[in-house]
């Protein structure tokens, strides 16, 4: 008996989700209809005005109606399937936003295990797959998916930037600092790299990870407004990383303030999961106390 493929196996999913060419049903229908008209024309010429001509005309009339009906039905079914696929992608998006990773992973496993109907839905599913893999700390797989998207799927500027950011973050988490640095340099060169909160966050993380706290703090202070405008509650990530940077420079008061801000916006457990480098702060600084109603 063949063993079941492992959960979220990247190579299997990339191959299985490739859209397949469809049977050209519409071409057969059109061909059949044209054939019927030609046939009727020749039969008409061989027995003009005969009863067979009347029967044939009626048949062709019904055939035409049937053809229109089939085309409409085929379009309807196709649209319904595409909508169902889009709805599934939307559901994965919601699960990822709600941080319900196991459900998102299961859904992606199901969706990507069969050929996608639309390349767009597949591209979106692959993006979410890369996020889920990163959440499970499978950074190498996440980078593979990002690389596949960048090399195989045409992307608009915004999506391209987002994919490159995700890739750079995974490379950093994987401790592949050389490639991460190259990825950051590439991101800086693009037009989207200007005033990008995502890029600022990746750079702050890189600087904290490589022991350049002063540069991390400088970047944070320079980009704080951009980080607030673009990241919403994820600005907590930047506060947490800069707290670590202050701590590395032994600026304890600033570190406490930044740590307080970070934990005010995001639970400590979630921040530590994202950035293991901040875990030493838990023994040195006080997190922001949450009121009873939300604790």
């Amino acid at each position: 008996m063949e063993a079941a493929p492992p959960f979220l196996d990247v190579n299997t999913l990339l191959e299985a989700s490739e859209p397949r060419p469809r049977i050209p049903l519409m071409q057969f229908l059109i061909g059949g209809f044209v054939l019927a008209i030609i046939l009727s024309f020749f039969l008409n010429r061989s027995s003009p005005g005969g009863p067979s001509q009347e029967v044939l005309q009626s048949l062709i009339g019904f055939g035409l109606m049937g053809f229109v009906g089939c085309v409409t039905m085929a379009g309807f079914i196709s649209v319904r399937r595409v909508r169902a696929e889009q709805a599934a992608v939307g559901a994965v998006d919601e699960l990822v936003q709600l941080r319900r990773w196991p459900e998102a992973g299961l859904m992606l496993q199901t969706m990507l295990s069969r050929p996608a109907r639309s390349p767009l839905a597949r591209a979106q599913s692959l993006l979410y797959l890369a996020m889920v893999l990163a959440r499970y700390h499978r950074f190498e797989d996440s980078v593979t998916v990002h690389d596949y998207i960048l090399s195989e799927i045409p992307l608009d500027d915004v999506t391209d930037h987002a994919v490159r950011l995700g890739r750079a973050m995974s490379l950093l988490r994987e401790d592949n600092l050389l490639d991460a640095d190259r990825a950051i340099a590439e991101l800086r060169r693009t037009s989207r790299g200007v005033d990008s909160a995502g890029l600022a966050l990746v750079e702050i993380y890189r600087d904290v990870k490589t022991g350049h706290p002063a540069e991390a703090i400088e970047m944070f202070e320079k980009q704080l407004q951009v980080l607030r405008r673009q990241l919403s509650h994820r600005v907590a990530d930047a506060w947490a990383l800069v707290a670590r940077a202050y701590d590395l420079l032994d600026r304890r008061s600033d570190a406490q303030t930044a740590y307080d801000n970070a934990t005010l916006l995001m639970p400590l457990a979630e921040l530590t999961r994202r950035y293991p480098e901040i875990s030493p702060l838990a023994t040195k600084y006080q997190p922001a106390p949450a009121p009873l109603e939300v604790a």
Partner: protein
Amino acid sequence: MLSVDGTITRFRRDLTIAALLRAGLMTVALTCVLAQPLFGMHQDWMPILLAVGGIWVVLSYRSMQGTRMAADSPSLIAAGEFDRAESHIDAALKSFSLFRAAKILSLHHLAVLRHAQNRWRESALLCQALLSQKLGNMQGMARASLLMLADCQIQLGDLRGAFGAMGRLFHYRLSLGEALTLQLLQLDYGWRIGAWESMLQGVGGKIQMCELMPPINAARSQALLALAAYKLNRAELARWLRRRSELLADPREISAGRPVLEEMFRQPL
């Protein structure tokens, strides 16, 4: 600049003409097919049938062109290119369409544009015109229009109308994004009627929802929750929420059009 009243009149007229035309073409096609076998009318119906088919194909193509014209407008509105979006929508609304969906979509885009331009009355009128149609399988559009309508009515001070629109939304299964928008609308409505208790009902869940919102909405929602907490003398919760909102956005931006929030931010923490 498109006149909203004129556009709505034209939209309704176009829908009626398209419905009549569709019915007419179908009737002729059916007559052509059934005349001979059922009524024994011996005549060559094929040219008429082909002509009907041809007209249908040409009009379908034109409808598709209209849909394509309108398709760009959401991205133009999002990019703040309102004039270009308006010209696209204008062209789409003026072109003939055999199918209702294309016209309804264009009118919806116009409502979104007017909403983005803060022209609340016009956007509300367009939403109402849209919601008066049978939207069939376009439920997503119905939900988006109801959310927009509720927002416009809150901005116009028509709180009864806003309550009605929000009430209708409970008949639908909302997406996460829609549920987030509705939560902000409910909070915005809540402070206007002084419903502090209900604003804080299930506050834990509401805060989790806030964490998924874009920055300004997240900040404003939490500021409104903080206000409700102050009103109910839950000072610790109020301070915590207020600090979170201040970390996300500038207080002036958060309290735009909401003097009660301005007042709250002026008080010491």
